[in-house]
């Protein structure tokens, strides 16, 4: 499992270089953080469903 990075200084320096216009919420509520957790889980499910459908349509069996 890949570890998370903490170097925000470099991240924002690169982000500024892209010229993108952005806003930052540095103090998100617990509700917002739990929404993010749910969104990440939902996206993983969605990706897995798309892969399973593709595999079933193309006769690919994944053995565990």
């Amino acid at each position, binding site marked *: 499992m890949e570890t998370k990075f*903490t170097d925000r200084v470099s991240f924002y320096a690169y982000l500024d270089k892209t010229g993108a216009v952005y*806003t930052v919420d540095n103090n998100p509520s617990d509700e917002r953080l739990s929404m993010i957790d749910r969104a990440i889980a939902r*996206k993983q499910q969605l990706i897995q469903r*798309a*892969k399973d459908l593709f*595999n079933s349509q193309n006769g690919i069996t994944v053995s565990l």
Partner: protein
Amino acid sequence: MAYVTHNYALGNHVYDFSVLVEGEGKKEKIPYQLSFEPNRHENITTVTLVKLFHSDKEYICHDLRKTVIVCFEDYFTKFPDDPVFFETELAYEKNAIKFLKFLRWARLYKDQYLCRVDIVDKLEQNKNVLYAYVTITKI
């Protein structure tokens, strides 16, 4: 460029294509799916790009960017007033690098598309959240 098929199913616009990639000394075709899922209540469309096969391997792909922009252009031609939205977790280095590359690439299209980015950032001892919401609108 990759051959793209477009399907409309359950209210979603789905673009399927395979791109030729190079990695580990060989070439392979990797299937992708780009889907646009309209949410009429919030008047926004969520876009998702899924690599359908070999998702754990790292490949060099020359066609993906070109093909994705063709799909976006096709979608925006059909629905010019629809804002397109995606969200992504950035706390992992690989994701953050891809995201920064995307924004750099998006600058090429700044006369045609407006790209708005909202970031949620929380870094504490036991919490490391870096998350982005991106909205793309045709100008």
